[in-house]
């Protein structure tokens, strides 16, 4: 399973090479098809588990240790729920990558798109297969990052960059809450392994941290799955190329939040708080999503808002948590991924083949693109929940679950019925508007799409129909075990196309008629509801904008306060805080500190060296010539090096000598650029500086003396001395510590060194440019 996850990253590495290879001269070369073989193979591999995991309900666990000291491992779990998601991710991924090969053919950054799509697929697979909270979180953040890069794919375009940043801020902000929630969950359950956590339902429910951890996790899931009030980022993310929208922002990534809630349902779900938050927020998101979908006219906007509706529906169903609701959630999830994936790809085809991106500029394309029109119609029927599509099965179950909901049934039912009506309208807009009626004038003459682009919509839409007709089989082989995984116990609820004449069917019929009527007066409806645009002015997106402005203001303010730009103030702050912290700590432990002053074995040459050092320091402080100040500083440096040597630290001594030498070289280079060496500050400021210097020096002296005389722990040096040669193969302990015992420290240091060098470079470069101006 590790290979299944990592292969995506490996393929991402070779994608540019595959893309760049042109075996058949300049002719069309299907790099997309070649790269799509990976998701195809993964799909087949996951499908081969349909019998064991799907039908027989087995759970496959694999684990690799990662950071054992923190209880973090790279463990994977393949159960019904993971299998359902893994099949969707790899299956839809296959069509998306093949489609992207054609959609962005000849684009200069097409290789980058492949790299990002494959990395995203790998991260998403890692997310749904992880059995460890921390590795799940890592993959979770990876999907946010790849999504950011994909939304900002046209990075030369400002709105696209802004949308990418908005998506990143919202999902990453939620991610922080999620991490906090995960840590609480791990503390409460005593493990980071999902398989252990989920079996401790009572323990978690009664834990004092239950409410905080639930809220934090829910914030994370909501931000990712675009629930109110975070829903605004998703339609904006449509700045991404269409295959990306189809894949990330409809079929897979945005369902990560839903996946997480479903995954945690056996452990955290079933409480009143859970039902209240998930049920009500989900229902509200569902309604607001579908309402805004009907209000929009951009093809991708309509689809994006209807995705918000679907995500809301899923959240609501998981919140309700009854066996029917969970069954409905899983069915709806599958149905939505199929029809929405297909419709987004159709939207891409419309844009590609006609140049239209708005429903207002479409119409009558049916004769030019009959295949696209046919399968768009099929997918739209599933979206509208029309028999015999799989969407119908899901919608009937959803209505049944809402009507039987133990809590808030009335509220949820009202919102669900309203959404069902508007959902039919959306389906009609998508399924009828572009294809029938008068032929719209377009920039490009409408033409049928190439096979690589048609494959996705055709197969996904057909599946909506086939799965609808074979609903019981779908449950038996695939959904059954997923439902068991989410509910925590097997569920006696059968999926079937025909449930007989009942209340949900009646609601479906009524909503079909009402929805179609609404479509007939679509223009009028949008005009009549124009007042709701006013609400958007105070809506969550405005909160986001305000927050961004506020953050900029706060950072500008604190920069003004703290960053004066004068070296002397920085030094004063740093040294002053150091002195204050050291002295306060020493005062706290004043009783246990011994000052060790032992001069019995003082040697004559030591006194001489110390004398030279003192003289050089005085010289550097009071001299009135720059050259002698430099010379005095050099004398200090070399005397210190001598001290190191006398106290048998040759490595330190060599380093000190070399650093002094290089300092001289640097000084030579900058000497002529420095201003004249004159007295810049009045005497009282110089006295203040001298006072501070003396205090710092005295503190350090005190600190060193007390360190010498006080020992709280056994020194670790004996361990280093003993272990250096046998276990680290080195006799130079200093070097062994640097490159072996404390490699991570050194790694951090060289990163800092590299950063500092970059900073200096930037400063020199800017100065040079200033001069040129």
């Amino acid at each position, binding site marked *: 399973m590790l290979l299944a996850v990592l292969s995506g990253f490996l393929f991402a590495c070779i994608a540019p090479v595959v893309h760049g290879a042109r075996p058949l001269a300049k002719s069309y070369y299907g790099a997309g098809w070649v790269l799509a073989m990976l998701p195809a193979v993964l799909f087949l591999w996951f499908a081969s588990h349909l019998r064991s995991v799907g039908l027989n309900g087995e759970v496959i666990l694999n684990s690799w240790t990662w*950071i*054992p000291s923190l209880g973090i491992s790279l463990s994977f779990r393949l159960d019904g729920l993971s299998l359902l998601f893994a099949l969707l991710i790899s299956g839809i991924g296959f069509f998306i990558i093949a489609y992207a090969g054609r959609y962005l053919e000849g684009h200069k950054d097409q290789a980058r798109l492949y790299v990002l799509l494959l990395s995203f697929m790998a991260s998403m697979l890692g997310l749904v297969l992880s059995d460890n909270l921390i590795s799940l979180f890592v993959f979770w953040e990876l999907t946010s990052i790849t999504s950011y890069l994909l939304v900002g794919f046209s990075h030369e375009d400002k709105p696209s960059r802004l949308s990418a940043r908005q998506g990143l801020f919202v999902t990453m902000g939620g991610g922080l809450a999620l991490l906090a929630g995960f840590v609480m969950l791990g503390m409460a359950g005593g493990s980071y392994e999902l398989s252990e956590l989920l079996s401790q339902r009572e323990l978690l429910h009664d834990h004092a941290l239950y409410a905080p951890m639930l809220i934090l996790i829910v914030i994370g899931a909501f931000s990712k799955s675009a629930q109110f009030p975070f829903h605004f980022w998703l339609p904006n993310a449509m700045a991404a190329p269409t295959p990306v929208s189809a894949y990330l922002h409809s079929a897979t990534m945005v369902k990560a939040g839903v996946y997480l809630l479903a995954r945690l349902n056996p452990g955290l779900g079933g409480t009143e708080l859970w039902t209240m938050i998930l049920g009500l927020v989900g229902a509200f998101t569902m309604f607001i999503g579908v309402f805004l979908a009907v209000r929009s006219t951009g093809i991708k906007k309509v689809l994006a808002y209807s995705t918000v509706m679907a995500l809301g529906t899923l959240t609501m169903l998981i919140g309700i948590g009854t066996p029917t609701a969970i069954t409905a959630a899983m069915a709806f999830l599958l149905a939505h991924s199929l029809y929405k994936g297909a419709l987004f790809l159709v939207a891409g085809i419309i844009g590609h083949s006609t140049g239209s991106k708005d429903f207002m500029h479409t119409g009558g394309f049916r004769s030019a693109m009959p295949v696209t029109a046919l399968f768009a119609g099929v997918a739209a029927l599933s979206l509208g929940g029309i028999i015999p599509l799989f969407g119908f099965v899901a919608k009937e179950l959803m209505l049944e679950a809402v009507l039987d909901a133990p809590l808030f049934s009335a509220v949820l039912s009202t919102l669900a019925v309203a959404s069902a009506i508007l959902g039919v309208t959306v389906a009609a807009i998508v399924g009828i508007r572009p294809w029938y009626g008068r032929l719209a004038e377009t920039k490009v003459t409408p033409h049928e799409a190439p096979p690589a682009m048609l494959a996705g919509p055709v197969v996904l839409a057909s599946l909506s129909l086939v799965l609808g007709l074979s609903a019981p089989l779908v449950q038996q082989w695939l959904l059954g075990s997923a439902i068991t995984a989410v509910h925590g116990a097997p569920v006696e609820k059968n999926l079937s196309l025909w449930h007989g004449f009942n209340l949900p069917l009646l609601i479906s019929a009524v909503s079909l008629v009402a929805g179609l009527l609404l479509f007939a007066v679509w223009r009028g409806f949008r005009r009549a509801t124009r007042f709701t645009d006013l609400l958007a002015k105070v809506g969550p997106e405005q909160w986001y904008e305000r927050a961004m402005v506020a953050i900029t203001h706060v950072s500008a303010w604190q920069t003004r306060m703290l960053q004066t730009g004068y070296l002397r103030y920085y030094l004063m702050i740093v040294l002053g805080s150091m002195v204050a912290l050291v002295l306060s700590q020493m005062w706290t432990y004043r009783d246990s500190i011994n000052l060790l002053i032992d001069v019995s074995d003082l040697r004559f040459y030591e006194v001489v060296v110390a004398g030279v050092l003192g003289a050089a320091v005085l010289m550097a402080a009071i001299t009135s010539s720059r050259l002698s100040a430099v010379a005095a500083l050099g004398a200090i440096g070399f005397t210190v090096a001598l001290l190191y040597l006398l106290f048998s630290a*040759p*490595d330190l001594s*060599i*380093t000190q000598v*070399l*650093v002094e*030498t*290089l300092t001289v*070289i*640097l000084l030579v*280079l*900058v000497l*002529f*650029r420095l201003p004249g060496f004159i007295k810049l500050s009045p005497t009282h400021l110089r006295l203040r500086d001298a006072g501070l210097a003396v205090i710092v020096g005295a503190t350090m002296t005190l600190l060193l003396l007390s360190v010498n005389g006080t020992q709280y722990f056994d020194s670790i040096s004996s361990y280093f001395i003993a272990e250096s040669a046998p276990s*680290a*193969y*080195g*006799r*130079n302990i*200093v*070097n*062994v510590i*640097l*490159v*072996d015992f404390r*490699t*991570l420290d*050194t*790694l951090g240091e*060289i*990163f800092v*060194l*590299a950063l*500092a*060098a*970059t900073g*200096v*470079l930037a400063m*020199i*470069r800017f*100065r*040079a440019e200033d001069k040129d101006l």
Partner: protein
Amino acid sequence: MNNMMSLVLRTTGYFLLPLLLIFSVFLLLRGHDEPGGGFIAGLVASAAVCLHLFFTDIAATRRLLHIDPRDLLGWGLTLATLSGIPAVFMGDPFFTSQWVEMTLPLLGETKVGTPLLFDIGVYAVVVGSVLAIVLSLAEAEE
């Protein structure tokens, strides 16, 4: 820099430069057992290149280097980070040192390990950062 050109400096410089560079590699390789190591060796190498800068000019020094010091920064960090990875495949925590001992002709008993790779990374970062700063300062000077 032209005013610093002197025949004596230039003549000795051409002799000293290879010696100093060989010395820096010597310090790097022996660092695990005797005083030396990537940091010190990197400083020696940087000082050697600075010497070259003083008796020639920036263009000549850049030609001598073949690689932009800023790229050295990146390669050094990459190498140092990668040196932690072999441990993962041996089932040890990240950055556990891995050693191979072998007998080579001339050198005799020799050990090669990931800490050496790490030290070479440190060496590259030190050389890269010192030279990047020195060279751009010298350029700004002109």
